[in-house]
């Protein structure tokens, strides 16, 4: 229970930090912000790796893990690369 309470606190504090940070992102960069957060939400790759590498749940669970690793990897690789591509366009000439 204590751990859960700590996790909820972390969730709330991170939300507040997120609001503080993101209100400072200028509208010019909102599209790269969205693709960049797509990449960050690919952090579920961490959970996906643990799920795919564990054999307790049988074949179906491992396939679920496989799907999760695939989706999350698309987000991580695609998200960071396309964000970088856009940001490079803003940097050019300046």
């Amino acid at each position, binding site marked *: 229970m204590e*751990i*859960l309470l700590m*996790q909820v606190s*972390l969730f*709330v504090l*991170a939300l507040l930090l*997120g*609001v503080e*940070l*993101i209100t400072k*992102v*200028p*509208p*010019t*960069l*909102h*599209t*790269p912000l*969205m693709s*960049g*957060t*797509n*990449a*960050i*939400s690919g*952090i*579920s*790759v*961490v*959970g996906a790796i643990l*799920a795919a*590498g564990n*054999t*307790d*749940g049988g074949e*179906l*669970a*491992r396939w679920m*893990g*496989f799907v*999760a*690793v*695939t*989706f999350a*990897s*698309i*987000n*991580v*690789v*695609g*998200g960071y690369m*396309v*964000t*970088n591509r*856009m940001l*490079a*366009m*803003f*940097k050019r000439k*300046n």
Partner: protein
Amino acid sequence: MLDIGMDLAYLVAAVLFVLGIKGLTRPKTAVRGNLLSATGMLVAVVVTLIDKNIVSFDMIIGGAVLGGIIGFVVAKKVQMTAMPQLVAVLNGFGGGASLGVAAASYLQSLGGAGFAPGALGVITVITIALTVVIGSVTLTGSLVAFAKLQEIIPGQPIGFPGMTGFNGLLLIGSLALTVMLAVEPSNTLYFWAAISLAAILGLTLVLPIGGADMPVVIALLNSYSGIAAAFAGFVMGNTVLIVSGSLVGASGLILTNIMCVAMNRSLPNVLFGRMGAVSEGAGAGDEIYEGKITSASPEEVGMLLETAQKVIIVPGFGMALSQAQHAVRELADAIERNGGEVLYAIHPVAGRMPGHMNVLLAEAEVPYEKLIEMERINPQFDDCDVAIVLGANDVTNPSAREEKGSPIYGMPILNVDKARTVVVIKRSLSAGFAGLPNPLFALDNTLMVFGDGKKAVVDITTSLENG
């Protein structure tokens, strides 16, 4: 010891994500910020791979290679006009990944040690069920948003009477199944039923929303994908997932709010409203325009621009559709060579997602300092010699400011009509998304240039340079 080391590494990853987003607060530091964030991801992945609970790597490697290749190809190939579709589908994959993680975790608990007795077990089951519900809604809802933006399915609202009530039932149903699963965790039927209801809910939530409202929907689903990741973090007891999921969730919520304010709509109105009175004012157009339209040729506009000191270009998505960004920049270059100043007025909903127009113009090598957001550009129309409206309509409609009865009354607009001369480049006098006539076209200081946007801009540039 290893566990502590792992937790510290996850903390490092979370800090790098925060610093990465902080980098995005300025264009100059943004590239570095993105790299910091990617480094955080690398740290998190490497640390996870040495976890002692991993006994087999085949599925991990297979998924990473497959997903990595898809991500690489898509990121390289995607057109900037198609960014909304890409973000929509990535939102969906984010939700799908969290769904997969929670489902695997559920099956592993059933197949392994089972759920802890008492309250702790109940909380775990509820968390898992909520994660799969949010993940499932995000996945199917995002796929519909993608299909609408990609025009695989029509952009108009699709639905049936009582759809909101139907959606309410689906939501209650999936929450009820969550509770039933908490009472009887081993009943896998409840589990799959909850996922299925949520999947249908995702479809029926987004289908009735029109194409013009997709920017709000994408931002909202972006938020959901973050919340789903944070919940998956609760399931796995993993702090980096909780922190980064919350950051993404907060980001999506803020962008959703910005888009709603820019359209003068509440979120419930966007989600359930279905713009009722669309056709109402459409017929009144002839009356407003009758005998008051002044049209001009590109040559006349070219001559006008020769003496202009300050020009503001107002781009809309129509500009991007006719691939006129580069032509517009060349026109701006010509005006600047002629001694004039050129700025771009960017309405928050000028593109198809938050910040989209900026990216489209940046691709055409327009310096970002010249892209001015609505609040800062509006006072500048007063001393502007020529405002050029290209592919924008509703966001320049003075009715939003002046006509109390107008359906768009109160929507923040660009005060284009305050410019000394307004040049509107448009194919015809047809209405925009809101279906309303635009009195701007009939003003004394407005010149209409009828024709293809790109060709008109090129002709104006030619005439300015030869004049």
